[in-house]
């Protein structure tokens, strides 16, 4: 059995290690003894070699590092020093520990291994990146199938090296769709023929996604003494647009089997090209057959491709995309200026151009932003691992279900979402899902569920984290809120407000602090992270049934649709996704509300914030002001401005460090006329006003 081999190797290795130890100790005393150095090197070499042969890959990999160093010592590139001997002894002990561990199944101390390797590399004077790492076969990304034209002409005496060319052809066929044409044109007459010689050669057309190296690998044993030509003939994307594959003559011409002159001479006769070429003795029939086979092969491959029509993709560095999006952003700004100028001049021709540019820019913007979209699924799978590990650690049985993994979000957003989502899931596992016994006592299945879902909703994505755990304890939250001084003892809070408290800084209801969900620093950080993405977070919970947290995230960060408004001479932007409607506010309305800042909108009272006074903008408001009514966390709040100018594509520019903490402003943008408009941070403004009112 295989264990037997492993056992044999281990015995051998233990012996070698004992020998190694004594050699090293001697080496310390006689650091220049080449014989000893050679002995150390050979011991390492054998351990590495046999180790990888019998499945001790970790030992082989580690020993390789030590061996590399001793190779340098052997070649006089490195001196034997006390430190080197110390490290090598440590390495020797580590190998022994790894051997021991392999038996018991216990893990080895990876940190110690890494530490020794780093030490050795430092000693050798190279940094990690330049270190001679064991040749790793580069993992190549799946690629599009390419069609190769292969001509394999074996040497006459291929049979006497025991090679059977047919097994090679069979191996090629395993790589993809393959058409084989045997060329028998080289046969001599019977008298001259060597019966043990090979006179046949092969033309092959192979469509494979394995790459040229895989083809060369097939011929690795014979490539030195055979004639092997491998060439890609068609990138599939290229000839897709062509009506037909190349003409027979073109193929032969490309292969160098025929000269252009010969071809023209033949073509002049206006008969079937292949037949003619053969009858005139320019070509052997086999070559024509081969070219015809290529034609047919590619037709077939293309048909297959059309059926499958697999979506091809290319990899592009993220910076290039960022640059593209930045450029599109600039473009949008310039386009706005063009539109504005055109409108001012009122020249019909210019207006038409401006409109065309506007339409194209919008399309360009959408597709540029689309490129940056990634499915959120990759993050989901990471969370599965998290759930598995955490539930094991806490002794809970938890299953994670996901939905909408294909939902796409901006790359940057996905990256920034990771931490908040990890935190929310941890909370669900730690505080939400109960222990199996408690669940069964409550009449629920012992195995809890954490559901992670993503779905598109307008220009945002809703991500939900739902568990079927204990749910939020309103009383506990209330008690804690009072205790922490977040709310007053007499405060009357709605359920929503109460749940909102868990996002307050320094709030935690868990009775014990666990390593999993931390020390109550979590939820307020989560909320801030989500808001930094211009998103919002919402909690609903039923005691005993579970908790559902909904995160709403805008699709992209770089460019938003917004509403351009004006107060005095200043322009402001309000994210259109938050805007519900606009209504007028007359002087009479203001007078009627008796300073309570409430507007009547279709039988409903909507509180509003007069931005003019809020921002301390001087001057007089017009007789009829506008209220832009927004919806934040499901609550309608109005913002009073002088004028609503209209929708605007806003390229968000951050304000820089100095203005980072400015309340109520999330960024700025440049308008068509070159002036700057500030982007209002609606949720923050609402929150600030609520806080002031207590």
């Amino acid at each position, binding site marked *: 059995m295989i264990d037997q*081999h492993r056992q044999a190797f281990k015995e051998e290795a233990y012996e070698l290690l004992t020998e190694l130890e004594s050699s090293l100790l001697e080496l310390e005393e006689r650091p220049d003894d080449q014989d000893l150095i050679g002995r150390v090197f050979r011991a390492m070499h054998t351990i590495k070699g046999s180790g*990888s*042969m019998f499945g001790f890959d970790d030992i082989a990999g580690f020993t390789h590092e030590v061996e590399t160093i001793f190779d340098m010592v052997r070649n006089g590139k490195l001196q034997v020093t006390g430190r080197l001997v110390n490290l090598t002894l440590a390495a020797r002990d580590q190998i022994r520990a790894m051997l021991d561990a392999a038996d018991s199944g216990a893990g080895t101390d990876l940190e110690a291994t890494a530490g020794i390797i780093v030490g050795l590399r430092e000693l050798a004077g190279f940094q990690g990146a330049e270190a001679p790492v064991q040749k790793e076969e580069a993992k190549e990304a799946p690629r599009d199938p390419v069609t190769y034209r292969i001509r394999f002409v074996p040497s006459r005496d291929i049979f*006497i090296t*025991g*090679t059977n060319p047919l*097994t090679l052809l069979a*191996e090629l066929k395993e790589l993809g769709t393959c058409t084989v044409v045997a060329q028998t044109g080289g046969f001599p007459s019977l008298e001259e023929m060597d019966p043990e010689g090979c006179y046949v050669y092969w033309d092959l057309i192979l469509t494979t996604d394995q790459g040229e190296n895989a083809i060369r690998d097939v011929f690795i044993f014979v490539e030195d003494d055979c004639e092997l030509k491998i060439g890609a003939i068609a990138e599939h994307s290229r000839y897709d647009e062509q009506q037909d594959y190349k003409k027979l003559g073109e193929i032969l011409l490309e292969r160098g089997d025929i000269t252009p002159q010969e071809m023209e001479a033949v073509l002049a006769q206006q008969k079937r090209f292949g037949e003619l070429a053969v009858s005139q003795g320019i070509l052997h029939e086999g070559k024509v057959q081969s070219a015809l086979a290529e034609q047919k092969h590619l037709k077939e491959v293309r048909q297959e491709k059309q059926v499958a029509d697999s979506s091809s993709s290319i990899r592009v560095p993220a910076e290039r995309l960022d640059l593209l999006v930045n450029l599109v952003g600039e473009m949008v700004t310039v386009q706005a200026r063009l539109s504005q100028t055109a409108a001012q001049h009122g020249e019909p021709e210019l207006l038409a151009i401006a409109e065309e540019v506007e339409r194209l820019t919008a399309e360009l913007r959408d597709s540029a932003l689309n490129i940056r979209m990634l499915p959120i699924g990759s993050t989901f799978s990471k969370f599965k691992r998290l759930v598995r590990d955490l539930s094991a650690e806490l002794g809970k049985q938890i299953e994670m279900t996901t939905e909408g993994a294909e939902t796409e979000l901006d790359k940057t957003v996905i990256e920034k979402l990771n931490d908040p989502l990890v935190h929310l899931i941890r909370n669900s596992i730690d505080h939400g899902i109960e222990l199996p016994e408690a669940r069964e006592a409550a009449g629920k299945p012992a195995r809890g569920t954490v559901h992670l879902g993503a779905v598109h909703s307008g220009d945002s994505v809703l991500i939900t984290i739902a568990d079927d755990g204990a749910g939020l304890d309103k009383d506990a939250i209330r008690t804690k809120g009072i205790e922490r001084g977040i709310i007053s003892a007499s405060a009357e809070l709605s359920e929503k407000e109460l749940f909102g408290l868990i996002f307050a800084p320094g709030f935690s209801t868990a009775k014990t602090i666990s390593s999993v969900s931390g020390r109550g620093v979590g939820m307020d950080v989560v909320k801030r992270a989500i808001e930094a993405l211009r998103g919002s977070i919402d909690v609903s919970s039923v005691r005993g049934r579970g908790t559902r947290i909904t995160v709403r995230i805008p699709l992209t960060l770089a460019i938003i649709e917004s509403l351009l408004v004006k107060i005095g001479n200043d322009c402001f932007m309000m994210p259109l996704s938050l805007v519900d409607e606009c209504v007028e506010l007359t002087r009479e309305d203001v007078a009627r509300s008796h300073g309570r800042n409430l507007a009547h909108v279709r039988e409903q009272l909507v509180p509003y914030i007069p931005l003019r006074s809020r921002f301390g903008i001087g001057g007089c408001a017009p007789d009829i002001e506008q209220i832009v009514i927004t919806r934040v966390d499901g609550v309608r709040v109005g913002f009073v401005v002088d004028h609503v100018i209209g929708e605007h594509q806003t390229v968000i520019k951050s304000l820089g460090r100095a203005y980072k903490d400015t309340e109520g402003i999330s960024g700025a943008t440049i308008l068509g006329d070159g002036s700057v408009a500030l982007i209002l941070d609606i949720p923050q403004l609402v929150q600030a006003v609520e806080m002031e009112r207590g």
Partner: protein
Amino acid sequence: MAKVIMTADDSASVRQMVTFTLKQGGYEVVEAVDGKDALQKLAGTKVDMLITDLNMPNLDGIGLIKGARALASCKFIPIVMLTTESQDSRKQEGKAAGATGWIVKPFKPEQLMAVVKKVLG
């Protein structure tokens, strides 16, 4: 009928591993401890393939390959030699003597099977 493969190696542990791997793959195996032993056994049994080490006492791998190719029964069988990376010159020597291919040591069972499949079909 299962194909017969001969492994010639002076190292018992390598021989053991090769034999085990090949038997797992459904082949019959004949073991030989060096080149001389191998040639004697080849004269009496028909094998479909030979896997040989290069460094062996009595008769080395190159000698074995030459000797085997001289036998009518072994003229066209695949012969694969086991070499180490540093032995490129030996590899050429082996090819000149009539080896079909080579396996670089250290190797894993999967690699051995891949080469056997490649040359034996």
